[in-house]
């Protein structure tokens, strides 16, 4: 009895340590974002904010320094870059949602064919699409830059959209082919017998059943495009196309950064994907179950 209690207590302790490891870093950022630099740059830093303030957020969003900032030394121009986080987030959203839409449309159609139809070159093209993803991103950085430059797309949303679609599509096709492969065929066959075309079957019968799989594929695609950094770094130059990761990294890796301001910008950037992940939680885990669990 006592032994069981001890084990339970030990397990709770393990869980709490795990929770601290997982959530601690995020909570600390949240904590930093409601303090001012003068409280953060102390030894030891203030973990419990003395006067929690939304001034960092106010500054990042309105771009006019609140009163509390008057006597705080700012990290100069580099911290100033945190102020362009809103336009950068807008770019990130435009790019990530366009990529998601294209990848889903193109990927679902191709995946359905791979899962259901037999044709010459089927295995070969499938293998080609999948292996293309094994080429590390850094390995084709120069040629991709040249392609985008020749297309006249440098520093535009379209540049990032095209590149991300090419990089994410193989995963989407693989994932959806798996997913479609698990579907019962009887319903489709009934639809085909009733005179539906293949495409019509896909649209009217299959898509509604596979909506969870599509949602998971969409979540993966969105996250992938939203997070990408390397290509965003060298395909964009101005705030017309710079995405949130690029702007934040430019701000945060400098030594004299205003950490309060950077934390506020960072929180604004990670909130959307976190909400996304929590809302799509069921689909994502179920999607993983299909992809990896069986």
């Amino acid at each position: 009895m006592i032994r069981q209690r001890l084990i339970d207590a030990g397990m709770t302790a393990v869980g709490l340590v795990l929770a601290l490891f997982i959530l601690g870093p995020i909570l600390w950022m949240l904590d930093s974002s409601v303090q001012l630099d003068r409280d953060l740059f102390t030894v030891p830093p203030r973990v419990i904010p003395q006067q929690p303030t939304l001034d960092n957020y106010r500054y990042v969003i309105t771009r006019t320094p609140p009163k509390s900032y008057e006597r705080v030394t700012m990290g100069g121009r580099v911290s100033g870059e945190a102020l362009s986080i809103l336009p950068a987030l807008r770019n990130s959203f435009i790019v990530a949602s366009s990529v998601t839409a294209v990848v889903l449309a193109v990927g679902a159609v191709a995946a359905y064919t791979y899962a259901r139809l037999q044709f010459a070159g089927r295995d070969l093209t499938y293998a080609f699409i999948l292996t293309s993803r094994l080429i590390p991103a850094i390995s084709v950085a120069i040629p991709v830059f040249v392609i985008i430059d020749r297309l006249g797309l440098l520093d535009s949303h379209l540049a990032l959209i095209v590149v991300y679609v090419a990089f994410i599509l193989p995963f989407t096709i693989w994932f959806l082919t798996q997913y479609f492969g698990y579907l019962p065929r009887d319903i489709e066959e009934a639809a085909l017998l009733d005179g539906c075309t293949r495409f019509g079957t896909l649209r009217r019968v299959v898509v509604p059943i596979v909506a969870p799989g599509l949602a998971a594929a969409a979540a993966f695609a969105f996250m992938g495009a939203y997070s990408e950094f390397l290509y965003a770094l060298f395909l964009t130059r101005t705030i017309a196309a710079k995405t949130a990761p690029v702007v934040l990294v430019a701000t945060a890796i400098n030594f004299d950064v205003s950490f309060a301001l950077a934390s506020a910008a960072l929180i604004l950037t990670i909130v959307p994907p976190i909400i996304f992940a929590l809302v799509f939680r069921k689909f994502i885990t179920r999607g993983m179950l299909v992809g990896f669990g069986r």
Partner: protein
Amino acid sequence: MARANSRQRLGPLILGRATARPRGRLQWYAYLSILPALCFVALFAVYPVAFSVRLATHRYVLTDPHNHPFEGLRNVAEVLGSYYFRRAGLTTLTFTASVVASVLAFGVTVSHYLNRPGRLAGFLRVAILLPWAIPVVMAGIIWKWIFNGNYGVLNALLVSLGLIPSYVSWFGNPILAPLTLVIAHVWKWGPLAAIMCLATLQAVPRDLYESAHIDGGSGWAAFRYITLPFLRPTLLILLILETVGGFVTFDLVYVMTGGGPGDATSLLSWFAYAEIFRFLDLGKGAALAFIIAAVTLGLSLVYVRLLRLEALYS
């Protein structure tokens, strides 16, 4: 039975048999439906690779823009023979081995915890999605701030717990700096491994454990003979993902350490980046990129083979 089983296990990697063999119009539909996907992928796979071959076999230094003699494998040889390549290669191997081991261990142990009943485990099953959802460069920024030598919260915590006597310069120490990268990497990618393992664990039939328990098997025996065989395919996939992922790690290095101190965290992809974007030597950069691609492709093929053998013999 064994065949069916192997096909099922290979599921994630190979294409099942399609039933329909279309003729005429349907055949056209098949090609038409994969055409857009093929075009996208080809534009960013075939052409870049061909272009890289050209770069790697010629002299392309941007500071000398009009002089591109053919040099054969000289770039590759020079990169392979250089001290920095060997250093970066060794660092990358150590880093990759550490993250593979840590992420797999994290995945297996944490998934067991998540699979427990109770509110805390239920809460953690949701919370564990957060690091996965956060972009990797953001994770890097967060951990850089935590490990900050002067104002970092980790130093403050460790000192107040009496674990270290004074503040440690995490990024200034050639042994600790790679460790910070590994920790940040595990924080970011361990959760995905745990979620995948959890999905597998939940597919293990309960009664297997019950009968093991009745037969007087220990917890370890149950893990060894019931859990592990079920987890094996998932672990192999994770092994591939993590090896390749560790090998091409770039974002965390860029954000957290910039390759330093000295070249302590200068991984191969960072080295390639520096060669291209700092020293503007496209030829050497492309040669290096090829070496990285060859290694990751080779590793993936070895693993896929392993997976197939695994599927055939289990």
